[in-house]
């Protein structure tokens, strides 16, 4: 089943493949014109230049980090230049094999280095929201197949994103088989990843939260909650529907046996029974297709997490800013007190110096000087932090707008797909029961 290609509707500047490695907090956003140039199509986006498919999945055995044998699935990534296709030449694609953990590594790298971007999610690691017939086994061929599609979708989404499609590591992921992992590690992102994780899990309170981001966080929570609920109930509905169809299959067998003792009714019964079998069998394809719909919803369930991560990063920046401002303010105050000799705030040092005698003027001068330097540095830092904060907000919000458009488009399309599936199911049902009715009328 085709996945929708994410069409980025926001424009950004040039989108050269393989440039500008991003740094935390700024990155290519700094090079780009702010906001969106309305209506400009992303002609230069990677997805327009190369066609990416994850075409195959294969079971492999290997050795893991602890030198124990393991079985895993490898996925074949094929890339083909778009131009070569349109000219009617069908050049063979470039290809390489990657496993799920490498995709995870890529995504973590992107998360760390583009914290202002709503990074597309990976398909689920383990099967969730299963209904009873559906296997929760990662090795199950249906699961593997759906995962293959999900991984392809992930790559296409990244390639369609105006900013992250330019990332060198991403490009290498698609094209460079050997040594890619080492390349990633050399960027030193692991360190950043650790501190990011720590920060994500820390609890702190921001004094002046940005209302937009608070609302966004709230929205992402709601999105996650409602999609989870929907997926859960959908799974139960699927389960019951499966039951209804499959029990009808029993009619087939019994009608057939019954027809053996009937003269006039026999033929009608027998042929009706056949249609009952057809009916019972039809549910398998129907529900298989519905799983793809569920996957579309799941993608946005996971996108909610990505949204939340951006909000969290903003909170961190804001908190950092507030702490820096607070620190600066207290240093300034200290400086003032030292200069004027008044003790406004209670401090042990102040008390001890009162008790044990004043400091010498040289000592005081020294302290003031140190503080003034610190204040100067602090002001510089605060300035750059402010800039950083504003840049982050600008670029994050641009991406959030882009994401919103994509989400509205995709979800609407998913709902339409769902309707199409239901229509197909109804038509099949009418067909089968019309046939059965004819058989019954011959009884």
């Amino acid at each position, binding site marked *: 089943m085709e996945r929708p290609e994410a069409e980025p509707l926001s424009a950004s500047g040039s989108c050269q493949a393989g440039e500008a490695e991003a740094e935390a907090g700024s990155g290519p956003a700094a090079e780009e014109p702010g906001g969106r140039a309305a209506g400009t199509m992303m002609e230069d986006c990677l997805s327009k230049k190369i066609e990416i498919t994850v075409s195959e999945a294969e079971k492999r055995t290997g050795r893991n980090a602890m030198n124990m044998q393991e079985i895993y699935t490898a996925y074949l990534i094929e890339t083909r230049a778009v131009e070569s296709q349109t000219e009617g030449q069908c050049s063979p694609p470039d290809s390489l094999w990657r496993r799920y953990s490498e995709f995870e590594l890529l995504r973590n790298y992107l998360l760390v280095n583009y914290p202002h971007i709503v990074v597309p999610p990976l398909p689920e690691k383990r099967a969730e929201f299963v209904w009873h017939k559906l296997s929760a086994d990662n090795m199950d061929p249906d699961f593997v197949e759906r995962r293959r599609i999900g991984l392809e979708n992930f790559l296409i989404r990244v390639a369609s994103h105006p900013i992250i499609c330019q990332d060198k590591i991403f490009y290498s992921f698609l094209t460079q088989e050997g040594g890619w992992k080492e390349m990633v590690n050399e960027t030193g992102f692991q360190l950043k990843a650790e501190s990011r994780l720590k920060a994500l899990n820390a609890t702190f309170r921001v004094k002046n939260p940005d209302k937009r981001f608070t609302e966004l966080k709230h929205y992402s929570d709601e999105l996650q909650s409602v999609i989870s609920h929907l997926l859960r109930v959908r799974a139960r509905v699927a389960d019951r529907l499966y039951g209804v169809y499959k029990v009808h299959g029993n009619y087939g067998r019994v009608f057939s046996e019954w027809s053996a*003792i009937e003269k006039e009714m026999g033929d009608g019964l027998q042929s009706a029974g056949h249609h009952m079998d057809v009916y019972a069998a039809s549910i398998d394809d129907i529900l298989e297709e519905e799983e793809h719909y569920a996957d579309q919803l799941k993608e946005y369930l996971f996108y909610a997490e990505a949204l939340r991560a951006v909000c969290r990063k903003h909170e961190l920046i804001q908190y950092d800013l507030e702490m820096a401002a607070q620190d600066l303010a207290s240093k300034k105050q200290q400086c003032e007190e030292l200069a004027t000799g008044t003790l406004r705030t209670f401090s042990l040092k102040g008390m001890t110096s009162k008790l044990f005698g004043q400091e010498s003027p040289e000592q005081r001068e020294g302290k003031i000087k140190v503080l003034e330097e610190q204040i100067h540095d602090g002001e510089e830092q605060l300035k750059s932090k402010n800039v950083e904060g504003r840049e982050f907000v600008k670029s994050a919000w641009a991406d959030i707008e882009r994401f919103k458009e994509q989400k509205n488009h995709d979800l609407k399309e998913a709902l339409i797909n769902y309707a199409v599936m239901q229509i197909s199911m109804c038509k099949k049902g009418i067909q089968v029961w019309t046939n059965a009715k004819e058989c019954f009328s011959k009884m």
Partner: protein
Amino acid sequence: AGRAAAANRRGRRPGCHGGMEAESRVPGPPLSGSPAGGAGGAAAAPRPSPPGAARAPPPQPPEELAFDDDEEDLEVFSKDTSLTEANSFSPLIPTSPSSMINQYKFEDEPELKDLFITVDDPESHITAIETFITYRVVTKTSRGEFDSSEYEVRRRYQDFVWLKSRLEEAHPTLIIPPLPEKFIMKGMVERFSDEFIETRRKALHKFLNRIAEHPTLTFNEDFKIFLTAQAWELSSHKKQGPGLFSRMGQTVRAVASSVIGGGVKDRPDMFTDINDYMETFNQKINLIDKISQRIYKEERGYYCEMKEYGPIHTLWCASEEDLVDSLKGVASCIDKCCKATENRMAGLSENLLPALHEYVLYGEILTGVLKRRDQIQADLDSKVDALSNKKTEKDLLTEEIGNLEDKVECANNALKADWDRWKQNMQHDMKTAFLNVAENNIHYYEQCLATWESFLTSQTVDLHLGEDSEDKP
């Protein structure tokens, strides 16, 4: 409306829109309607010529639409509310015998139906000793042997049991229709729950109507008394008869002999065939009954989940301003499909399930009938044996044997005829029931299809208007 009317025209009505008893549903036309003219409105249709034998006009129903004599044929086209109700799958209390009179059931040789019975209005009675339910039994008839043309009595389950046993005694080798069970073993249905009472009421209604349709049983004296006697009259009449015990003895002996003696020797092949057939039939019908019950259960489960599924989409609307239309649309579609499922389930519980259950019960009845026939033959055989052994009393025995031979012949003939009749009915009833299922299902899917298609149309129209169409797949 026209469809049901047109179908009424010939033969037994295929029970298109529910109603396992054709009689209770639609007050259709007494005369055949013109083929294409059946659509709804009251048209001034030319009076069609009735096919085949002429019929006497039915007794006028007082409470139905008042027709003048020359408007009789307009009944065919009248917009009767019960006709539209027939399309809505809602459970109907069977209409009164008066409305049933307007409907004719044509057998292969057209017969006049002159006995109409309904069972309804269950009422609870509480005495010091017990609590029980009585049902109202209304009879309308034009038969001469009935003193009046209309009767209304109240009967309790015990009374039905009594009637059945009297019929079995009077006609040991006729197939007496089944009564609903005394208790329901499976499920949590309580003895006096509404569901239980309604199921029982429908089955009792069916029971009496089957007897009324039976060429022999319909003229049974106890049957007449059951339908017409007041409560005290019935009690005193009950006390007179031989009672249950003699019949029980009969069957006990029959069961005993067939268990001990193995089969009856020289049983005519026909009855062995019937026996074999019934063995397989019973097995299959029981399976089908179970399967159908299971389907009902699954459908109900599906219905419950769907009820929760739709509203989640509405809930989602609250956080998505741009998707409100789509989400609300999906929610509404799911709710409509939910309703359609309800109808589908109702179809099962009103038609297929009771029909199947009746034939499950018939299994035991037929076994009993065959055994009683065997017993009658066994009586003859033992007397014949006695004759060859005894030296004295030859004349007496010979006379007895003569009588018994007649008895056996009668019994065999009666059973044969009734068996053929039963088979025909079974075929018809099964066909009707399954046709009904198929039609219900088709209707269900058609309803769902319509609602999703209309949603899709509304969505794709928006898409083409609002967005860049070249991007769409």
